[in-house]
C-alpha cells in the first residue's frame, strides 16, 4: 500500500503514530494494569492516587498458586476440561467436515444448515434444560456432564471451520489417491489429513480457548468438584471483595495459558477469524 500512498507529511505521521499508540495502550491497559497491581502489597494497592513506583512483590502470585486462596486445583480442572473437549471435538468434527466438504452426502445442504443453526443457540437456552437433565441423571458437577455440554458450542464451530480448510484442497488429490489404489479411508488418512494439519491446529486453538474461557455452563452445571478457573475467579470476588492484588495475580495466572496461546498462535487465530468470517456462512 505504502508505495501508492501520497508522501506522508510529518504532521500526518505524528498524528497517526499518536493515535496508534493510544489504541495499543487502551487494548493493553487492563492487562498491563493488572500486572502492576498484582505486584503490589495489599496495603500499597489501596494507596490513592494509585502509586506507580513501589517495591514489587511476588507474594500474590505465590498465594494464587499455593495459599488457601490457591487456584491450582482449578487450573488442573480447566486443563482437563479444555483438553478433553478439544480432543473429542477434533475427533468428531474432522471426519464430519470431510463428508460435508468432499463427499456426496445425502441431504448435505439441510444437514449443513442444521449444524449452522445449532451454533447459534444462545447458551442460556441450553443451560436451563441441561440443569434439569444432568440433575436427573446425576451428572451435575462431573467431567462427563461438562464435556457433553461443551461439545454444544465447540462441535458446530469446529465443523464449519474445518469445512473451509478442506474446501481449499484440490479435488485431484483424492482422485490421484483413488487411482493409486487408495481406499476412501486411506485417501483421507494419507493424503487429506496431512494437508489440513494447519487447519486442525487453528481449530484446536479456538476450541481450547473457548472451552478454557467458558463461564455460564461451568458456574451452573459445575461449581464444586468441577470448578474451572473462570468460576474460581468469580468466586474470588464474591468471597474477598477487597483483595484486589491477589485477585489480579490469580486472574493473570488463570489467563496466562490463553494469553500465551494467543500471542504464539496470533497468526493462526487471525487466519481462523478471517476464514470463519469470509466463508463462515457457507458462501460457496
Amino acid at each position, binding site marked *: 500500500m505504502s508505495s501508492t500512498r501520497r508522501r506522508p507529511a510529518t504532521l500526518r505521521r505524528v498524528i497517526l503514530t499518536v493515535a496508534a499508540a493510544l489504541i495499543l495502550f487502551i487494548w493493553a491497559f487492563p492487562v498491563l494494569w493488572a500486572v502492576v497491581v498484582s505486584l503490589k502489597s495489599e496495603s500499597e494497592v489501596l494507596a490513592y492516587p494509585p502509586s506507580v513506583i513501589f517495591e514489587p512483590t511476588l507474594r500474590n502470585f505465590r498465594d494464587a498458586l499455593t495459599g488457601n486462596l490457591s487456584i491450582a486445583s482449578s487450573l488442573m480442572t480447566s486443563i482437563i476440561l479444555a483438553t478433553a473437549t478439544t480432543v473429542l471435538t477434533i475427533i468428531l468434527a474432522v471426519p464430519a467436515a470431510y463428508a460435508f466438504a468432499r*463427499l456426496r452426502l445425502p441431504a448435505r445442504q439441510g444437514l449443513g444448515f442444521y449444524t449452522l443453526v445449532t451454533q447459534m*443457540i444462545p447458551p442460556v437456552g441450553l443451560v436451563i434444560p441441561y440443569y434439569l437433565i444432568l440433575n436427573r441423571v446425576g451428572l451435575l458437577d462431573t467431567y462427563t456432564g461438562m464435556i457433553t455440554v461443551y461439545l454444544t458450542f465447540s462441535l458446530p464451530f469446529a465443523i464449519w471451520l474445518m469445512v473451509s480448510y478442506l474446501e481449499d484442497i484440490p479435488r485431484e488429490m483424492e482422485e490421484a489417491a483413488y487411482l493409486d489404489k487408495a481406499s476412501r479411508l486411506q485417501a483421507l488418512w494419507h493424503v487429506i489429513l496431512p494437508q489440513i494439519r494447519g487447519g486442525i491446529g487453528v481449530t484446536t486453538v479456538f476450541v481450547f480457548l473457548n472451552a478454557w474461557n467458558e*463461564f455460564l455452563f461451568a458456574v451452573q452445571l459445575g461449581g464444586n468438584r468441577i470448578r474451572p478457573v473462570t468460576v474460581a475467579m468469580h468466586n474470588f*470476588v464474591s468471597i474477598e471483595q477487597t483483595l484486589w492484588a491477589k485477585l489480579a495475580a490469580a486472574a493473570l495466572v488463570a489467563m496466562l495459558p490463553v*494469553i500465551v496461546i494467543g500471542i504464539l498462535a*496470533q497468526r493462526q*487465530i*487471525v487466519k481462523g477469524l*478471517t476464514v470463519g468470517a469470509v466463508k463462515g456462512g457457507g458462501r460457496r
Partner: protein
Amino acid sequence: MSSGRAHADRRALAAGERRFAILLVAPALLVLLATTTVPIAFLIWNSFQTINLAMPFLDGFAGLANYRQMSGDPAFWHSLQLTAIYTGSTVVMQLVIGLGLALLVLQIPRGQWLFRIFAILPIVLAPVVVGLFWRTLMFAPNFGMIDFATRALGLGTVNWLGSPTPALVSVIVIHTWQWTPFAFLVLLASLASLPEDLYEAARLDRASAWRRFIHITLPLLRPAIVIVIIMRAMTALSAFAAIYAATGGGPGTATEILNLYAYRISFTQLDFGYGSALAVALLVLTLAVSGFLFRIRTAGSGP
C-alpha cells in the same frame, strides 16, 4: 448387458460413497442431535410447564401460561429493550471503531504485527475475567483507573456500576473493548486483500479519498462487514459472563438483558417453566436476527 444391471451397478457405486459419507458425519451429527436438539426440545416442552423448584407441588402442564405471563411482564419487555440497546450499540461501535482502526493501521507502514498481537489480547481473555478486571481495576470507586481519571479531571467520583445509566454504558463499553479487535482484525485482513489496481484507477480518475472509500472500499468490503455484523450480533445477544461479573445485571435490573433475565428467573427464582419460556424467546429472537442478516447477505452479493 441389461440396462437394469447397469443401473444397479451405478447405484451400488454411489451408495458406497454415500455410506462412507454417512459413516463420517454420523458420530458428529448424533452428538449434535443429542447434545443440542434434545435439550432444546426439552426446553420448549418445559416452557409449557410449571416447573418451580421452590414449589414443586405446583408442577404440571401449564399450556401457554408462561407465554401469557411473559407478554404482561414489564421486566421481560424491559430486558428485551436492553437487549436491543446492548446489541445495537455494541455492534455499531465495534464496526465503526474497528473499520476506522483498520483504515488507520493500514496507513502505518511498519509495525502492523504489533497491532495484531495487542488486538488478540482482549479476544483471548475470558469474558468473566474481563468483567472482573473492568469492575475492579477500571470502574471501582477509589481504586479504578477511570475513577482516578474523572477525579483528576475534576469531575468527581462517578459510581459507574452503581447507578443505572452509567452501569449500562459501562457494560456496553466493556463489551466493545473486548470485541472491537475481532472486527478490526477481520476488516484489516479484508482491506489488505483488496485489489490495488482499483485504487490506482480511481486515483487516475481523480476520485477523492472520501469518494474512493464510499465507492470502492465499502462495496468491496460489504461481505466482510455483513459477516462481522452477524457474528458480533450473535455474541452480543448471548453475552453473559462479562455483565454477570461486572454488574450481575444490576443495579436493580439496569443491565439485565434478556439472557441474564432468563438466567435469573431460572436459577435464582427457580422458576424453570417461565425461565424456559424466556430462553425460547431469546432463541427465537437470535434465529430471527441471524435469518434476517443472512438474507441481507445473500440478497446483496452479486453473481
